């Protein structure tokens, strides 16, 4: 049984990654969007006289949130093209494993994008990212996983509605507020060279609850 599950899991994961590598549509759009966002955030908050370094964790998480939302929406849309999603529904597999595979591929793409954003942060915001890179990585990975765990569910929920493109961010963003708060604080601490254990634990808890909920609930979304 476990071998079969693993095979389905890796099949979906590999399919998603290969598709993205070939088209690069999500990657390019969300990366460019993030660059623009970094610039906009600077000019939008310049007048209040904020210190650049102090802004960087917030700016980074805004980029993750917005480009992540765009990316999740896009991946799901490309799943709907040609009715591919119906093929997944009709396959004799547990929805839970499909969900976990999708969370993994979405989170992986987002994390790669974040790693590319870090040098830009150094460049634009003069941030020192080397003070506690372990904690920084932990904050980014856990936060991104929590974000995609919720997003992968919500994108399917809103895909069933008439105004999916509008509704997805509207429903998704309030739900990721706790993740955002925890992520920003954990990143901030890491940038100052500290480790924010309580925030990391909090993110682990969010991950456990929502990955479990998604695992159990995804099957209910796989119906027409």
């Amino acid at each position, binding site marked *: 049984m476990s071998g079969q599950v693993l095979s389905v899991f890796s099949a979906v994961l590999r399919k998603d990654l290969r598709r993205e590598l070939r088209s690069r549509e999500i990657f390019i759009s969300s990366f460019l969007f993030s660059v623009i966002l970094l610039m906009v955030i600077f000019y939008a908050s310049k007048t209040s006289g904020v210190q650049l370094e102090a802004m960087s964790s917030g700016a980074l998480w805004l980029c993750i949130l917005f480009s992540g939302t765009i990316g999740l929406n896009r991946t799901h849309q490309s799943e709907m093209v*040609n009715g591919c999603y119906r093929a997944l529904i009709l396959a004799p597999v547990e929805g839970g494993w499909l969900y976990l595979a999708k969370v993994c591929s979405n989170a992986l793409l987002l994390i790669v994008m974040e790693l590319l954003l870090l040098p830009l942060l150094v460049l634009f915001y003069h941030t020192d990212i080397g003070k506690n890179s372990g904690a920084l990585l932990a904050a980014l990975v856990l936060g991104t996983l929590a974000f995609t765990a919720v997003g992968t569910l919500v994108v399917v929920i809103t895909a069933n509605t008439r105004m999916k493109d509008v509704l997805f961010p509207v429903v998704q963003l309030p739900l990721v507020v706790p993740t955002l708060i925890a992520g920003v604080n954990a990143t901030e601490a890491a940038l100052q060279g500290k480790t924010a254990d309580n925030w990391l634990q909090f993110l682990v808890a969010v991950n456990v609850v929502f990955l479990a909920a998604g695992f159990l609930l995804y099957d209910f979304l796989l119906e027409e």
Partner: protein
Amino acid sequence: MTLSIRFHELSKQFGETIALWRVSEAIEPGDRISILGHNGAGKSTLLHMLATLSKPSSGELTFSLAGETCDDVKKLRDHLSFLSHEPMLYPDLTALENLRFINRLYQRNLSEDALRELLDKVGMSDFGDRLFRTCSRGMQQRLSLARALLPQPKLLFLDEPFSGLDRGGVERMKALFADDQMSWVLVTHHLRLGYELANRFWILHRGRLLHSLQKRDLTYEAYIKLCEGSSMEASA
């Protein structure tokens, strides 16, 4: 292993519209059923429910595997396949990659050679490494057929499978549907093919099952008459 489906008083309601109203019938191994009816008669609704894509609003829908009633949808889906005018294949993957993905999704463990053989069966052996996106409509439909046949289903659901196919494609599809191991249920506007291929006919009208006929009871002329709807209106 045999797969049969019985349904009793099956209804499907979308809000105030009734798509299907108290339909009772059965599908046995060896059945090749052609569902006939006007637009909006409930053909696709019925097909979707039988293929476990949607659930009935009321009525009983019983699936039996090897003579025993089976409620496990996942287990059933292992033996069902669905072919519609939508190809259900990823545009950014090549034909072979798509098939490999389906192969692993259904846990069929077919070898590369078997997959190529399958491509050959639908006349696409030269296009295995071509991106699905760049294939023409007819080629896409052939690949879609390969996808539907890959899991070697006991029961195949076909929703307008001939759309976009040329003569050669239709001939190949006909040959593949003649397989004795597989039953199928077909919805099509291709009247001639619907008659030639099937051995049973269900005639739906406004969500009701008006007739269920064997081929031996129905001449082609009577069939055409039924399809054109003159007798449908009369008996409604």
